[in-house]
């Protein structure tokens, strides 16, 4: 996930300061990990260094003085390029679950029991996300974020079911080498 492009995207709707960008990011992407302030400021400094954003001035608004940033023309061009570019469909997703199954086989553990526990954990999370998105008044951004996570968890579950059905073959293959 490119924080730099997302912040640039938020800046493209008008000049803004770091605190405001963080708040808008967390609102816009409700199920994403909230941005840390430190990360926001570091990213803004890099955008300025690369001439994709510039300092417009300061704004105190009665409180502490804040640096206001705006996107440059180069920034707008870079943003358009990035937003239109397809994300690479990952050829191999980093798969901790598969790693644990293989390690369990190698170390004489119980991969079937592990897969059942993992399935329970996935289902529990899916129930939580379903509650989040079906809460009356949930906005569409929340529903779509939850749906994205649910689709991925569901894909994991399908993979775990298939893997559980093929554990004896996998065990033979892993232990033969």
């Amino acid at each position: 996930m490119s924080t730099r492009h997302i912040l640039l995207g938020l800046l493209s709707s008008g000049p803004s300061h770091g605190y405001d960008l963080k708040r808008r990011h967390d609102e816009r992407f409700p199920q994403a990990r909230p941005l840390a302030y430190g990360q926001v400021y570091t990213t803004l400094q890099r955008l300025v260094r690369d001439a994709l954003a510039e300092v417009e001035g300061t704004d105190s608004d009665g409180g502490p003085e804040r640096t206001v940033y705006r996107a440059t023309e180069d920034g707008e061009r870079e943003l358009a390029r990035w937003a239109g570019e397809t994300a690479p469909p990952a050829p191999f997703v980093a798969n901790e679950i598969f790693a644990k199954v293989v390690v369990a086989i190698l170390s004489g553990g119980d991969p079937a029991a592990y897969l059942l526990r993992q399935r329970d954990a996935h289902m529990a999370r899916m129930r939580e996300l379903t509650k989040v998105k079906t809460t009356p008044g949930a906005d569409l951004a929340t529903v779509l974020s939850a749906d994205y996570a649910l689709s991925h968890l569901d894909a994991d579950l399908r993979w775990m079911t298939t893997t559980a059905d093929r554990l004896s073959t996998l065990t033979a293959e892993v232990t033969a080498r």
Partner: protein
Amino acid sequence: MSATTEPLLAARDLVKAHGRTDALRGASAELHAGEVLAVTGPSGSGKSTLLHCMAGILRPDGGSVHYEGLRLDTCTEDRLSALRRTDFGVVFQFGQLIPELTLTDNVALPLMLAGTSRREARARAGEWLGRFGVGDRADARPGELSGGQAQRGALARALVTGPRVVFADEPTGALDSLAGEQVMTELVSAARASGAAVLLVTHDARVAAYADREIRLADGRAAVTEGAV
């Protein structure tokens, strides 16, 4: 909804064969008042048979089904029919609405069978159809409805009598994913609003995630149960 209260509906050690195939081999499940329970498992694991036995549609070959102190597996057919009219609502994968009747008359039918006047039954059917967003299709026959509309009609028919238990067997199985999500949201919110418990059979984890709790069947037995009780 706690482990210490008596379940509303309880199946114990159910055995049921279809011909030579053992569908259930000692399956047990408990449904508490007001909860949504998902029964999941691969095809052939016996989940639909479990639902049919718990709804009194099928009689098990062995084991027992208790509903509020009544033995469903041994009580008379008359008693079962009465119970299915007043206390139970059922939704299947394909709505199974009666093709010759309008949507309103389909929904009104269970009320009329229970003795409500036609006028009153149709009025209440209309309210439920409105609640599920298909009030404007009230005069359509099932053949003129989309899958999602027909399934909303089936939900209305299952809930119109104010049942204490709704049995839903793959209720989204014939719908595309968005229509399926909408039907599940409406089913669960309507059941929660009226205090009905739901026994939900599904092979789809995303549908099962609407439930409070899950029982997983494998080879005709409850393998694992999880979630908050």
